[in-house]
């Protein structure tokens, strides 16, 4: 006798549930959308911060300044020693003149006016490209330690390395991550709470119906199924909304980053497969929330 309801009946009842209180359905769908959007935003920030740091790590170079007048053979010897180290991808030697030419390009043309060539700083330099795995601030410190060992090498006058900048960048990313994480947790918790409680209210506002169904012999499963389907439908609507919202925000943020930082932004700042996750997560949230709330009501 343990037959479930007909599909036709289920769809009809779920549709009636939606139609009977479109307002409630909209609230639930919107909360789910909001929750998904927040998760999406957080994922987006995480994804892009990681990508940025990975790219930074790939193009990291350390400038090893050699003492002025270091003879080419000694320079070549130093180059050789640096090249042999772990984590070094490439070493490029620049002579005093090459360095000066490079600096001239970097400097303000106005500044250069009236200055003679010799006034432009220049020094023999080894540009060391480092293959670093930059995943945390600890990696930066390790890199700093690594460069310090170069000071012991003869003929090395100075080692320039944007450690301070990197430290600041990491601090910034970390602070953004932490704030984002705390906010996401707070907002996600609230959103989950809302989804749960709106669906619970939806169940609550239909407790007469649920009671009566029970009284005429419906099994808890039979009563539950239309509510679960409703939850899934709300989750789907939420996923659609969240996709639209995130798409809009994505465009907005891309434009912002491009205009303010003048950076070349990759086509998509969204983690791949995110839309799929939204469309899995939305219905799942709806299902779980409605399952919990109907289950709770039916048990008491």
């Amino acid at each position, binding site marked *: *006798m*343990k*037959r*479930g*309801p*007909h599909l*036709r*009946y289920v769809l009809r009842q779920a549709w*009636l549930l939606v139609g*009977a209180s479109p307002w409630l359905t909209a609230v639930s769908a919107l909360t789910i959308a909001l929750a998904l959007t927040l998760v999406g935003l957080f994922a987006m920030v995480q994804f892009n911060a990681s990508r940025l740091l990975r790219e930074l790590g790939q193009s990291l170079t350390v400038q090893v300044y050699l003492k002025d007048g270091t003879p080419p053979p000694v320079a070549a010897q130093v180059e050789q020693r640096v090249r042999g180290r772990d984590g070094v991808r490439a070493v490029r030697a620049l002579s005093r003149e090459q360095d000066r030419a490079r600096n001239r390009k970097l400097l303000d043309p106005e500044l250069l006016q009236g200055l003679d060539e010799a006034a432009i700083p220049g020094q023999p330099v080894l540009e060391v490209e480092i293959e670093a795995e930059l995943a945390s601030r600890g990696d930066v410190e390790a890199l700093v330690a690594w460069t310090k060992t170069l000071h012991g090498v003869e003929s090395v006058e100075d080692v320039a390395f944007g450690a301070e900048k990197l430290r600041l960048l990491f601090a910034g990313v970390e602070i953004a991550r932490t704030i984002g994480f705390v906010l996401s947790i707070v907002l996600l918790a609230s959103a989950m709470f809302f989804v749960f409680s709106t669906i619970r209210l939806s169940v609550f506002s*239909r407790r*007469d*119906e649920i*009671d*009566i*169904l*029970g*009284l*005429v*012999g*419906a*099994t*808890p499963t*039979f009563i539950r199924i239309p509510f679960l389907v409703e939850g899934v439908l709300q989750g789907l609507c939420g996923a659609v909304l969240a996709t639209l919202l995130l798409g809009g925000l994505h465009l907005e943020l891309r434009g912002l980053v491009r205009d303010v930082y003048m950076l070349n932004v990759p086509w998509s700042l969204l983690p791949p497969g995110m839309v799929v996750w939204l469309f899995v997560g939305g219905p799942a949230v709806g299902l779980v929330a409605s399952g919990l709330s109907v289950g709770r009501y039916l048990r008491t």
Partner: protein
Amino acid sequence: MIQLYHVHKRYPNGSEALVDVTLRVREGEFVFLTGPSGAGKSTLLRLLLVMERATDGQILIGGRNIHVLRDSSIPFLRRNIGIVFQDFRLVPRRNVFDNVAIALEILGLPRREIERRVNQLLEGLRLLHRATALPGDLSGGEQQRVAIARALVNEPAILLADEPTGNLDPELAAEIMGLLTDINRHGTTVVVATHDIHLIERYGLRTLALHRGRLADDRPRQPRPVVDLPSARVSQPVALASSPLSSQAVVDPSPDGPVAVAADDFDEGGDA
């Protein structure tokens, strides 16, 4: 069919709704339950449907002790009991047809069968023209008839009716009583709670009287019922042949024979 042994029911607020009630209703019987307001009539019916559990005592339905019934078996018990509530308990957001169809949807009957049975019954109760109305748009008497239809539609082994004619004019009341005696004649055990002395006197059936929760009187069936009180204005008897219930009885039609409610019917079957 229904047996109560020393049943007590005390509500959490302390009111003693039933006190030491012992009674027996045999299969295929038609019994009136009467008593002043607050005597415990509705409470007794609620206990039979396991909407409340007795504080003390034993209740057997179809030989099965429902005092120890598992929660998961309750729906299967209820499928064998049709009930008409005093306050109707229709689902406000489903129309008349759907309200009646619920009892059959639960059983998983094919849609066409559901439509056939519900429409036939609504027609018999003069409600077919209101089939798509919501309960809130019905008159009191119409709501009551929808509640009756829902209780009858799945041809239950037991029918409990709480004041089923309280909102009906005498003519309709007589028709409803005709319907109830009809279903009873086909084997369903019927218990009707009512204040309507005229109804009770006219039919002369067995009458249990409660008073302040105690069984005060058990008047057996009168051999010759008084059917024609001048004030009753009973209309022509309801066309029994057209009733959906007479055409396809699922229960044994002999009023005293064993009715097809085995104890196992309340369980979820082999797949539980």
